[in-house]
């Protein structure tokens, strides 16, 4: 029986005309349906021969293809179908093969086994591009196989997802590279056995693996079958040499994640720094540590560091007190239960702690109190002031031998003498009156200062200053003599000469100072109607006195809005005085004051209160006068170095200004007497109030936390409550809040020798968060930028 007899022949051509692929397919399917199981197709390039022949059922079906098979030989082949192509094959042999065995007795073209899922393709030669691409392995079936005797073309195994390819490298079309250009890109499954040189493959997708015994077992077992199929069993021995075979498998997804490149750290060390030198890019320019640091740092790497600025700044009270009393320190003593010391402390600064702080001073300390910024009442110093009436005179040091003559026994003169004596220098006071005290004693109405208070304070002064020469008028000669007899002369004669009102009838008026002095001694009867020209504080005092002496109708007139303020103004208003302005006086007549407007203000008494000027007639020519006042430097030294001048003769001011000037002048004289240059003065007068007497800048009050204080206290029950309510701006209250709030436990209290202590922040713990500064009630802690590192 010949082959032709055993095979049912289907010719791809009929009457010299090529059958359409559709017709050939119909005939082939029909033959199988009618029972043919061996079919020979004489192909004329028809598409897809041998696929889809499920009608054969479980019977083996053999399709032999002669002639020129077209594209996609055996496409969608079924299990049981065996297709033997007797020559080379066109594109896509075994496309989407689902089980057929396809043998090509020649070369295969492009796309062999593309998308094959089951079955087997055996090629007796080499194949073209994109073989074994997108192949699958369905776990329900055995994996597909591609056997190639020679080499494969470019892009072999792209997207290969399963199956086994065996590339034998025998009689290869490209013997130098049997896997072709860029094979196995996107491979995710399957195995490729190959034998021969290759030109690389996608390392990111696939990897070389040692051939296991099981793999080898599979290969040699199936190798014989393959060689038999293509009729090349003579090659078996040659191909069965295990050492010449290699195996590529797909990388697993986990495998792919690892980038097979050098790490940056390694690159830096072995490439970057090797080329540039140790320290890298700028290692030659700096030896600074450049190693990475965390966001939160300590020590020198902190951006900000806390500084315990205890007593580095003056509180507003102290800074604004012309006398220079450290008010907050007095409250500290009160808080510590040392009220007596708090009281006595003032005497180091002023001879009048009760009279002035408690009664006569407008209390600049209270006006500037930080508590005001939160609408809370200022700590009430008058309470402590009034308690100072019992302050005991300080113990006096022995006399140094230096002597000063003080001309004028008012507050300024007493202050300078008081300070000089406390420093051990002798001070002799000369005054024209029969009593010490100047304006304080003679002019200020008793309504503002009880007599007992003044008496008590003057009594204390007398114990400190026994040498007082009263009722002494001074002349140039006498000053000259004092200058010769004493180390220093201090002029504290005040401003005693009333300014004259330049209008007709001025002789009918009484000067305010005269009026007040006489009033205080009960030596004037002002009548029922009083007009006071000049509505300042002195005018107010006059009004109050007039009221006390029976006047019913009191008018204060001024050319501008009256400058009076404080208690003087309050008392005058309480006395029913009327304020009028602007009023320009034309003349004074018997009826009273005639204004420029023609209006007549009737008056029994007309008081002129438009200020006083110093009387400088008695001063030496060496003392320069400027605008009617004595010219002094920052130490209250006049142009005559031995002569100092303080108080209203230098410039008009508050009592506390005069007291402060006395202190400063005394300090300067003390320095000069000791042969030193006076310390640079911290200033004088109200415009320099932001600097304390001790030379400290006033604290920025926004540093102080007032939230700790009860905002509903409107009046203080006593000095204890006052002390408790003082924020102690700039001076540590030793409350320990900083220590408590520090998140790192960096802050601790350190006891110093004696009663001193300090709070310190441990740089190794501190992160520079600023919580200490934020929480500090006193504004003692501050955050400072750390020192630059480069």
């Amino acid at each position: 029986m010949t082959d032709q007899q055993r095979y049912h022949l289907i010719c791809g051509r009929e009457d010299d005309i090529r059958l359409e692929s559709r017709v050939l397919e119909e005939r082939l399917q029909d033959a199988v349906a009618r029972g043919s199981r061996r079919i020979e197709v004489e192909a004329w390039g028809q598409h897809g021969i041998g696929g889809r022949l499920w009608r054969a059922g479980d019977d083996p079906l053999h399709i032999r293809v002669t002639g020129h098979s077209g594209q996609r030989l055996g496409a969608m082949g079924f299990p049981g179908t065996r297709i033997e192509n007797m020559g080379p094959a066109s594109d896509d042999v075994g496309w989407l093969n689902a089980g057929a065995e396809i043998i090509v007795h020649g070369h295969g073209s492009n796309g062999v086994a593309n998308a094959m899922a089951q079955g087997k393709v055996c090629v007796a030669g080499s194949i073209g591009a994109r073989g074994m691409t997108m192949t699958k392995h369905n776990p329900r079936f055995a994996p597909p196989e591609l056997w190639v005797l020679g080499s494969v073309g470019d892009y072999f195994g792209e997207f290969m997802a399963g199956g086994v390819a065996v590339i034998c490298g025998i009689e290869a079309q490209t013997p130098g590279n049997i896997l072709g250009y860029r094979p196995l890109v996107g491979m995710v499954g399957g195995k490729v056995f190959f034998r021969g040189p290759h030109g690389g493959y996608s390392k990111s997708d696939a990897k070389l693996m040692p051939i296991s015994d099981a793999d080898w077992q599979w290969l040699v077992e199936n190798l014989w079958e393959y060689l038999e199929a293509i009729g090349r069993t003579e090659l078996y021995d040659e191909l069965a040499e295990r050492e010449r075979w290699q195996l590529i498998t797909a990388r697993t997804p986990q495998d792919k994640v690892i980038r097979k490149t050098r790490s940056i750290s390694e690159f830096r060390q072995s490439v970057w720094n090797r080329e540039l030198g140790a320290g890298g890019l700028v290692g030659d320019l700096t030896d600074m540590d450049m190693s990475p640091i965390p966001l939160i740092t300590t020590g020198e790497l902190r951006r900000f560091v806390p500084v315990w600025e205890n007593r580095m700044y003056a509180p507003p009270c102290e800074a604004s007190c012309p006398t220079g009393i450290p008010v907050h320190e007095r409250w500290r003593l009160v808080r510590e239960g040392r009220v007596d010391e708090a009281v006595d402390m003032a005497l180091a600064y002023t001879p009048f702690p009760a009279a002035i702080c408690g009664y006569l001073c407008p209390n600049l300390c209270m006006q500037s109190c930080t508590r005001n910024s939160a609408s809370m009442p200022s700590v009430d110093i008058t309470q402590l002031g009034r308690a100072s009436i019992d302050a005991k005179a300080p113990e006096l040091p022995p006399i140094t031998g230096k002597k000063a003559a003080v001309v004028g026994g008012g507050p300024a003169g007493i202050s300078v003498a008081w300070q000089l004596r406390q420093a051990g220098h002798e001070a002799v006071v000369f005054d024209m009156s029969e009593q010490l005290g100047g304006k304080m004693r003679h002019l200020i109405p008793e309504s503002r200062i009880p007599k007992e208070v003044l008496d008590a304070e003057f009594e204390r002064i007398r114990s400190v200053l026994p040498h007082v020469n009263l009722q002494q008028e001074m002349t140039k000669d006498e000053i000259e003599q004092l200058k010769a007899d004493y180390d220093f002369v201090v002029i504290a004669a005040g401003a005693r000469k009333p300014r004259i009102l330049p209008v007709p009838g001025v002789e009918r008026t009484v000067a305010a100072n005269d009026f007040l002095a006489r009033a205080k001694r009960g030596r004037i009867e002002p009548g029922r109607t009083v007009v006071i020209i000049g509505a300042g504080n002195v005018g107010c005092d006059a009004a109050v006195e007039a009221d006390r002496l029976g006047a019913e109708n009191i008018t204060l007139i001024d050319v501008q809005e009256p400058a009076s303020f404080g208690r003087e103004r309050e008392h005058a208003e309480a006395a029913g005085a009327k304020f009028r302005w602007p009023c320009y006086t034309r003349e004074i007549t018997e009826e009273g004051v005639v204004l420029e407007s023609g209006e007549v203000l009737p008056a029994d008494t007309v008081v002129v209160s438009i200020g006083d000027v110093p009387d400088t007639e008695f001063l030496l020519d060496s003392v320069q006068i400027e605008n009617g006042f004595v010219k002094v430097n920052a130490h209250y030294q006049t142009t005559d170095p031995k002569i100092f001048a303080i108080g209203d003769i230098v410039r008009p001011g508050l009592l506390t200004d005069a007291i402060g000037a006395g202190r400063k002048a005394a300090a300067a004289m003390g320095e000069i007497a000791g042969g030193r240059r006076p310390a640079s003065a911290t200033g004088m007068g109200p415009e320099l109030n932001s600097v304390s007497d001790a030379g400290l800048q006033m604290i920025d009050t926004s540093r102080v936390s007032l939230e700790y204080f009860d905002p509903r206290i409107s009046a203080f029950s006593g000095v204890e409550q006052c002390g408790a309510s003082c924020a102690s701006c700039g001076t540590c209250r030793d409350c320990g809040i900083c220590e408590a709030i520090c998140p790192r436990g960096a802050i601790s209290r350190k006891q110093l020798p004696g009663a001193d202590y300090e709070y310190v922040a441990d740089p190794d713990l501190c992160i520079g968060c600023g919580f200490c500064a934020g929480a500090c009630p006193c504004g003692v802690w501050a955050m400072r930028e750390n020192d630059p590192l480069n």
Partner: protein
Amino acid sequence: MSADAKITPSTLNLKDLPWQIAWSREKCTLCGQCTAVCPVNAIEPGVFRKRSVDVDINAPYQSGSGFKVYHGIRQRTAPAYHCVGCGMCAMVCPNDAIMPYRSDEADKLRFHLDQGGQPERRGGRRNAPGGVLDQIKFTRISMLTDPALDAGRHEFDMRTLLGRILPPEQNMQQVLENGWIPPVREIYPLIIGGMSFGALSPPMWEGLQMGVAYLNEEMGMPVRISTGEGGCPPRLLRSRFLRYVILQIASGYFGWDEIIHAIPEMKVDPCAIEIKYGQGAKPGDGGLLMWHKVNQLIAAIRGVPMGVNLPSPPTHQTKYSIEEAVAKMIQSMYMAWGFRVPVYPKISGTSTALAVLNNLSRNPYAAGLAIDGEDGGTGAAYNVSMDHMGHPVASCLRDCYLNLVSLGQQNEIPLFVGGGIGKNGNLAANAAALMMLGASGVQVGKYVMQAAAGCLGSETRRCNICNIGLCPKGITSQDPRLYRRLDPEDVARRLVDMYVSFDTELRKIVAPLGRSTSLPIGMSDALAISDKAAADRLQIKYVV
């Protein structure tokens, strides 16, 4: 503010600020980390008084009130300390108790930042989200009309040319006559734009340079980086890595004497020389490195004393006309390296760009033209310059490219553009769009800072404090306490990630166009936009 304080016109409340700090007393553990890290001291520890009222309406009537004090975080309202929204507080908070939130209405702060008559300056960006680049679509998808390529698996050759390319006949003639052929570099089309050593911190600069070296030597990507104006560390000048560096020369000429001194010792030539005439962020304004940033290191690299202000004039001082200016500079810079290094100018986007380009087209030495558009970033600029000056980059580029086309020189003078590319995160799409509009490559700065160093800037007025040296990420600071937060290795690592992913994205765009071996420069038939006016202006397709 204190109860008795008087208000001023610039007294602001929290509502007036662009950012508000939300702080939770309940969650806060008072650890202090937020106040320690806040770059501008916008928050501070505060003492709060909490009053409570206890009431009793039944006899014997014992109502009363009391208060308790608690501690917490307070936001400051003074303009000098306004919150910039950087969010570092949230980053360090262990309990998520603090976070800045953007105000729900326009802030009042902006009217008060000119205290002392000094208009507001800032670093960073224009804060203008949106823009034409993001709207451009790639509509030509060549699945069957051209060979379809697989972006993930095909081998792509994403390279561009930097340098003057002679027409073939002229090139051949030069070869035959042994004449001069302009140097041309084959480089990666995404260039790191000029950010100076000084504007950037040492670890940032080193990290970028290291990353670039890695990309070249480990990844095979010929990435190049411009130095910006501020010189170049001596070691880099003398290393083989100089090949990856574009040295910038600008009107201040800082660091150039150090570069000149290094020329005899250079192992390799630099990639190119960029002559900076203008900057997109602040056209017509010179740079200024404030004295406090001029520390020992910066001073050494720039060749100046420490602690001095370093202003750059708005223009190069010895140039008087376009012809002269460009020709003179290009000649000088070529000469320095024996005519082996391409030299090109960089200008800010301007309606006069064509005049510059026409000039370059007649200058056989001009190696290209870089244009920096209005969205360019900066270390420091006046708001008014940044917000209102400059030219959008797309149309400026397009005009230049089409002009070259009309001259027949589109393949001879490469155009590079920068300014806001990827500002909304679409780096590859913006870059590809610009290439198809005619750019041979793009320059990026801000994107690099964000991707490689975690810059907090956004197009919505966040942070933007590069100018004051307080960069909370250590990117633009010269203070070791800040810049040591940045690890140069991390910067390099992220730069590599950024480039590798950009490369993938760029392939995803060009593969469907069937391009794998040459960039689609000028391939504007692939572009479309749904804005008719923009389509007309850019001469690309209008689609809806």
